[in-house]
């Protein structure tokens, strides 16, 4: 099928160019550097865009206008924020544990960048593709929480400490649910490799293919993913009203910028993983047999599909965030341990049964099989 707007051709051309003109060692180094730069640039740009989008959507929910002074509709507002925060003073605080205090934001940001790397943004637009991709996501995303815990501890501030403790409890709990929800899909698609998971959803997205158990897993993943990113109604670790700014109360300047950036990016990452695993990733909508329709869909580049699907999920996440009051810590843990986790455990068994007995959509209606 023709895909004129895809970047795969460009990437393979670059690859052959480097391979033919350079020694393998230098080709690897340069390609690695390029990938690194691309990932970091994408990271920064997506974060800036998200900050702007969140402000605008929030304004929409709250019948306000949102930023509208810088550029048309205020679209370069977050650039101004970036400039400011880059040159803002970083306060050196007495009586903090210096090593841990300065290390903490890096944990958060590194974890978020590492998770970011495995997301397939489009056909061929994936930095790393392990065969244990799903486990990798769970692994590196858990490093971030250590940053939060250390930040709260080392700040030598009681509010930060309470925020960090809440954060720890919250993260450990919801990491379980998120993991199980992803595992449900692994049972369905039979692989942990992210690219293969996407590939297997050509005609039937996992959320439809696995119908009832997959949808339950999808909802649970959205809830627990949302909780993992510490955003309202699960924003207890920050809880503006109670803890002023929670675990990052004492951080200023760029260090605070890291936390701020990671928070927005984590929201994107959760939505992106949900898209990849449940909603077919960058795959366009395809219907077996409708070749003309399929051709038209393929014309729309894969990264557009990816960002559109992710965008819808982000919108939902913001909708929830700005509609609900904050949960209390006991309600939060009740939700996880009394509802989500038991449902999840049963759900994963239901999924195994569905797959073994051949009750998936693909098995029942072979027309969906790729």
């Amino acid at each position: 099928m023709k895909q004129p707007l895809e970047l795969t051709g460009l990437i393979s051309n670059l690859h052959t160019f480097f391979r033919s003109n350079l020694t393998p060692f230098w080709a690897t180094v340069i390609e690695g550097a390029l990938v690194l730069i691309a990932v970091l640039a994408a990271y920064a740009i997506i974060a800036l865009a998200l900050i702007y989008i969140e402000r605008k959507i929030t304004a929409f929910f709250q019948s306000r206008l949102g930023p509208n002074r810088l550029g048309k509709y205020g679209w370069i507002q977050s650039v101004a924020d970036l400039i400011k925060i880059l040159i803002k003073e970083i306060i050196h605080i007495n009586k903090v544990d210096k090593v841990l205090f300065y290390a903490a934001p890096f944990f958060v940001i590194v974890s978020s960048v590492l998770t970011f790397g495995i997301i397939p943004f489009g056909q061929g637009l994936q930095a790393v593709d392990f065969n244990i991709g799903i486990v990798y996501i769970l692994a590196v995303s858990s490093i971030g929480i250590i940053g939060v815990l250390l930040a709260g501890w080392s700040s030598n501030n009681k509010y930060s400490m309470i925020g960090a403790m809440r954060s720890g409890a919250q993260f450990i709990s919801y990491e379980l649910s998120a993991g199980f929800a992803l595992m449900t899909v692994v049972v369905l698609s039979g692989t942990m490799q992210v690219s293969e998971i996407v590939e297997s959803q050509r005609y039937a997205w996992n959320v439809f293919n696995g119908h009832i158990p997959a949808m339950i897993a999808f909802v649970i993943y959205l809830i627990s993913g949302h909780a993992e990113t510490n955003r309202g109604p699960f924003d207890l670790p920050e809880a503006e009203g109670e803890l002023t700014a929670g675990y990052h109360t004492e951080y200023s300047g760029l260090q605070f910028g890291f936390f701020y950036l990671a928070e927005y990016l984590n929201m994107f990452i959760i939505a992106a993983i949900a898209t990849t695993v449940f909603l077919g990733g960058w795959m366009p909508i395809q219907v077996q047999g409708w070749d003309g329709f399929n051709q038209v869909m393929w014309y729309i580049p894969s990264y557009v599909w990816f960002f559109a699907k992710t965008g819808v999920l982000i919108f939902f996440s913001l909708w929830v965030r700005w509609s609900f009051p904050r949960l209390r810590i006991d309600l939060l843990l009740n939700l996880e341990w009394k509802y989500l986790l038991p449902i999840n455990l049963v759900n994963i068994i239901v999924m195994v049964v569905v797959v073994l007995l051949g009750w998936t959509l693909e098995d029942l209606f072979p027309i969906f099989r790729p």
Partner: protein
Amino acid sequence: MDVNKVKIKALPSDDFKDNETLQAYIDELNATGTNVVVGKLDQMINWGRANSLWPLAFATSCCGIEFMAAAAAHYDLARFGMEVVRNSPRQADLMVVAGTIVHKMGPLLRRVYDQMAEPKYVVAMGACAISGGPFVNSYHVINGADKIIPVDVYIPGCPPRPESLFYGLLQLQRKVKVEKFFGNKRIVRPYNPDTLINPKTGETVKVENEFNK
């Protein structure tokens, strides 16, 4: 730099009242002249700073409610990129002193100010924060926040309407836009701690302030 060259998108320079005072400040600031490249960089930095002033509402009384009204739907502070109200002084750029400052609050106001990271700005909102307002004769009221901390912009009113607050904040944006990041030059800010006395020693407290030399 001319005051007319300071561009605020919402309001042309001529619509601001009393441009002469600001012009005098600017002239003083620019007495030494500037390198072109540095000047351009300064402009970019100031553009970023001026349009991303995250406020910390030091709201003690009525003016705080008007500040909240200004941040909510009808007036919407977010238009100027100022809606990210940070409750932690470490992360705020702008302290809006909204309300009366009394003797018991004075040390705390100073402490919150000291906790803020540079560059930090202060807006005294309402008559009380400017001069003590209706309570100027009271035994327990500090006659103006500038007895405790340097103040950039004064917004009169009791309480000022949100429109006045916006006018004041736009004025602050103008002041920010003429500053110099390289060389760390800022417009001199009124700060007259005339009666600061340390209660333990009975001596006048010497307050170090790089902008007042």
